[in-house]
């Protein structure tokens, strides 16, 4: 079982890092998601793998370490919130630059790129998110 979990974590992490290094925001978001899956599995495994053992401590009972499960739960919640924010930010970069490149290049000329209303380097003051 250890081997299966290790291979799964390794595969997820490798795919995650590969996608993280891509130039398009969508691939980067997917990569971060895969990476956080790998991390969550790893955290879960840090309490040792056991089959059929409840995470409840009783006298003499067979149990699995409950703490990593609590840690994973926290990590999942935080990772989910962060990814949601990243998706929103990526969409905003796409809307503002007309391109989903991670560097979100400026439209080169108003005629060449999609019409953007000529936003300056600093953007218009008074625009909310």
């Amino acid at each position: 079982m250890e081997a299966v979990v290790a291979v799964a974590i390794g595969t997820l992490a490798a795919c995650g890092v590969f996608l993280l290094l891509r130039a398009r925001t969508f691939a980067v978001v997917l990569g971060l998601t895969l990476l956080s899956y790998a991390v969550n599995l790893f955290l879960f495994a840090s309490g040792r793998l056991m089959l059929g053992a409840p995470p409840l401590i009783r006298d003499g009972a067979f149990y699995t370490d409950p703490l990593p499960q609590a840690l994973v739960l926290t990590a999942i919640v935080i990772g989910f919130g962060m990814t949601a924010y990243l998706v929103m930010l990526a969409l905003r970069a796409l809307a503002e630059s007309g391109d989903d490149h991670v560097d979100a290049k400026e439209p080169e000329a108003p005629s060449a790129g999609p019409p953007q209303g000529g936003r300056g380097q600093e953007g218009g003051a008074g625009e909310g998110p």
Partner: protein
Amino acid sequence: MIQHAPILPILIPFAATLVLLAAAGRGLAFQRAIGLAAALAGVAAAAWLTLLADRGDILVYALGDWPAPFGIVLAADRLAAGMTLTTALLAAVCLLHASHGFDARGRHFHPFFQLQIVGLQGAFLTGDLFNLFVFFEVMLLASYALLAHGGGLARTRAGLAYVVLNLAGSALFLIALGLLYGTLGTLNLADVALRLQGLDHDFALARLAAALLVAVFALKAALLPLSFWLPLSYAAAGAPVAALFAIMTKVGIVAILRVQAIAFAPAPATADLLSWLTPLALATVLFAALGALAAARLRDLAAWLVLGSAGALLAVPAHAGTAVTAAALYYLVQSTFAGAVFFLLAERIAERRGEAADSFRAGPALAAPWLALGFFLAAATVSGLPPFSGFIGKLMLLEAFRPTPAAAAVWSVLLTAGFLVMTSLARNGSRLFWDRKPDLPAPAAGPAGWRRATAIVLLVAAGPLLALFARPVADYAARAAAQLHAPQAYIGAVLGKDAGSIWRQRRP
């Protein structure tokens, strides 16, 4: 009441966040009042905590009254208390500055600002490594939103890089915590220290976990190969936000200082872990000085200055000595204020120069004697000219490094970098204020407003004031350093007297 003092600096901004969220539709004046009141209460709470911590005992707050290795604790020693006071002061000034109108450029500025304070204060106060991760995330989540506040492509672009990088850093943080828990079976810092010292197996895994942890803190503190995000994102952020961010690199530095002094240095498995840190830190200082020379705008220059001070401080943790740490803590406080003020000055100068903004090229005539005086004082402070606090901080740091083997390298790098920064500030300051194009009409800039003026005056005054009161601040720093480098007291305070008798199960 006294036993609740360590949690007040976290609880006050958190309560303010909730009130601000509930009162989202009540108008900006109401939000500003709540935010500023919470910031002032936070200053008072942090000052009280500093007074209490300075009695010499480490204040331990067990959340939910669960005892230490099983529950989460907050531990306020002199270092943590002093950092909360620095943070609270800086945050109050930045919030005052933002209340002039920056907070109106988007929604939800005030709740995020308070949440940022929650994260910062929690990261300084917590005594549990997983709780540190949670407070780091609170701090980062708020900083993502604050960085993007105000809108514009430059901020979105910088924000995207910043968020992706920090999410990757969080993944590494969790891997380090998983390794640490898998090896030691605990994440409480005091307990980690105890078990690392008694470690008789899995040396390599413990070293790897510790190294990963330091690498993550180094990413937050912007150590050289991990520092390219800082100039981009700090220069893109709005002025009061960037000024508050000046303390964020310090969170990473304090975290490294703390884990090194309490857990890693006394344990045989990790004692020599940070031997690579000083060369990289000195490279960061040089890199930042060259960046300051090459900067094209004042806000870029300010970001490079923040990076430079972080680099100088990162040279410290590897030399686990009381004298070096004491000097570093004084330097940390003064460099935070000195770095923050440039972002505020840059915004005002950009307003007064119209089209030329804060870029270092000829602009319209700029008749602003008070602004010029403020710039001069801040530049003299940050480049380490006497008689200001930058000079005292750098002198203390150099003097503390003199007996260490790294003295030659530290002296030559810090002095060279100081000279480069001074050259850059002198050249660019004269360009900003004196290099004028007579045919350009002076732009119609609005008044600075009393809030922004007060904030800038307070931050500029921090340089001379910290020099004037250098003795009490440096004495406090020395006491904090002595306490930090006596980890037995910390471990005893957190775990209680019967720390040795906690039953430990050997795991497969």
